[in-house]
């Protein structure tokens, strides 16, 4: 898609992967800086999306990923070329983390021609063949069988790639998820189910609607799928768990479940004031376990970077985001004739 000019991204993915492969436990300077940039990019992007939504430039639904940045950042740093990602509707962070162009993502949020789906998918439905990103799905849990099928194709085609199928805690009570677990375990498919447990399925806390409480990583036990609970606010912990789970899949041992204990700072969507939880609860998480602050502290305390160094990164991230925001407003509206493309139409 020529109209999505490729921006120079602030994140050096290759470096992150190399560093990760070398020494996952004690992250080096470069890796920490990569994490910092990546998570900051997601956060600033989402803040900008929220702003544009407030200005009426983004319509429909818009589910922000703020607070959960460590999950996708740590997971993606453990992937290699050809690995695939599929997720639910809270998907902007995943797209940025797979290396998709922020301009194309933001322009899809504004429904413009330059968006990844030419303005026809919206916030919840984007896709990139190049980055093996399979969407962006709006039906809770439906991406789990799809991700299992992507893993099926990987195994069928005898690759050693892995599919990361992300889901929220809410989807863990959908029936088709368990059918997929059974098939993935039965056929030893290379799929990591990444359960982003941000504590609330829309407006209901996970404890109130889940028979096993919050122990979602145990949900594969009946199928013999190993599961693990991970501090999803700690990008290093996420990365370690990702390495382990992905290695398990690549070795042909079948699926793996990672339950990321995480938190979303914003409501379910832009129209949710999140009255089902207290301000104190949110503030406590923000002040004690913010994933970006944690990495920032590691960088400063470890003597890897100064406040000024980080300010430079902030500046470059801001520039990328503001370029994306500009593009999302200058890219034209789709031509009405687009209604007749990309689907079988009978006049």
């Amino acid at each position, binding site marked *: 898609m020529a109209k999505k000019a490729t921006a120079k991204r602030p994140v050096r993915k290759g470096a992150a992967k190399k560093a990760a492969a070398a020494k996952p436990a004690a992250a080096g300077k470069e890796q920490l800086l990569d994490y910092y940039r990546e998570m900051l990019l997601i956060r600033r992007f989402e803040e900008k999306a929220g702003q544009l939504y407030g200005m009426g430039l983004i319509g429909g639904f818009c589910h922000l990923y703020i607070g959960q940045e460590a999950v996708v950042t740590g997971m993606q740093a453990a992937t290699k070329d050809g690995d695939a990602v599929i997720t639910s509707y809270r998907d902007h962070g995943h797209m940025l983390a797979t290396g998709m162009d922020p301009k194309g993502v933001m322009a899809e949020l504004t429904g413009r021609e330059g968006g990844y789906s030419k303005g026809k998918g919206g916030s919840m439905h984007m*896709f990139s063949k190049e980055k093996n990103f399979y*969407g962006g799905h709006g039906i809770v849990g*439906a991406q789990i*069988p799809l991700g299992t*099928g992507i893993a099926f*194709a990987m195994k069928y085609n005898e690759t050693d790639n892995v599919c990361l199928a992300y889901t929220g805690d809410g989807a863990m009570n959908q029936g088709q998820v368990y059918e997929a677990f*059974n*098939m993935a375990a039965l056929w030893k498919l290379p799929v990591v189910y990444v359960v982003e447990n941000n504590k609330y399925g829309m407006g209901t806390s996970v404890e109130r609607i889940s028979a096993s409480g919050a122990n979602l990583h145990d949900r594969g036990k009946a199928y013999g799928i190993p599961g693990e609970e991970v501090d999803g606010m700690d990008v290093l912990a996420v990365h370690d768990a990702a390495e382990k789970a992905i290695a398990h899949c690549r070795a042909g041992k079948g699926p793996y479940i990672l339950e990321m204990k995480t938190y979303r700072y914003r409501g379910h969507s832009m129209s949710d004031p999140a009255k089902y939880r207290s301000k104190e609860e949110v503030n406590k998480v923000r002040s004690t376990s913010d994933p970006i602050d944690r990495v920032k502290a590691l960088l400063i305390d470890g003597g890897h970077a100064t406040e000024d160094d980080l300010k430079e990164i902030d500046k470059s991230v801001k520039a990328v985001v503001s370029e994306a925001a500009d593009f999302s407003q200058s890219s034209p509206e789709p031509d009405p004739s687009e209604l007749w493309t990309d689907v079988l*139409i009978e006049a």
Partner: protein
Amino acid sequence: MSDREIMYRDALREALHEEMTRNPEVFVIGEGIAERGGSYKVTEGLLAEFGAKRVRDTPISEASMIGVGVGAAIAGARPVVEILYIDFAMLGMDQIVNQAAKFRLMTGGEGRVPFVLRTQGGTGGGVAAQHSQSLEALFYHIPGLRVVMPSTPYDAKGLLKYALRQPDPVMFLEHKHLYMTKGHVPDGEIIVEFGKADIKREGTDVTLIAWSNMIPRTLEAAEALAAEGISAEVLDPRTLVPLDREAVLKSVAKTNRCVIVQEAVRRGGVGSDIASIIQEEAFYDLDAPVTVLGGMNTPIPFNLALEQASVPQKENIVEVVKRVLHADLVA
């Protein structure tokens, strides 16, 4: 050209066999389709030929079986998912309607879903309300799906082969009553493109539009009508989506009358939609109202006599056609 006659189910198996041989991306999954060869024997022998990797038994999990198929399709494989009864496809409606049908548009055209769902429906020998439905209208209603309903072994083979060469999701709807019927299928390659209706019998007085198992029944009715001096043309659209509107309108322009015969319940059916197309596009060609003869608006009862009474029979078709022609004479 040979005069070889084979059964509908054998024609389907040949299509699968040929396409699996031609394209290593094609694989088949479903309940009891590998070791058991399928309840209707369509996949019999494929396991021995292609191995367990490409011919695979699944758990009884229709929703995710369809989802896994769609997932494999978006990642570039060519799955054929067999769902034992169309009634069971209802468990996978989310994956069919919300995922498979919409993926191409939602991705701005970059993503394609080369996915074929084979299933069978219709009445046939008292299998009762949950194994006898004709549900094509549900899929016909959903933009993004192709809906294919072969009535003969030739069409079954040619359409399935075509389905496995195009990039969009196909609901390939067979009929349980047709599996054992025989028809002419020449040796060698046959391909039937979507959107091309077939005139199964030429006539001049009335156009009878039917598909799937209503084709043999409508042909019988046409034969009976011929004995009474009425010349009926029988048109089989073969694919409901895409629909060969041109062929429908051309036939109606010739005969000036049309009866649509469907096994599915009358209410909200494909027949009503075709009737509306005809009255919009060809009103001035018509000498009589377009009439839809469909199944009764009832779940299919178990008792054989009741089952038969619930869907159009040869006698009903003859009666309706005569009524339509009589209306014309009165006018």
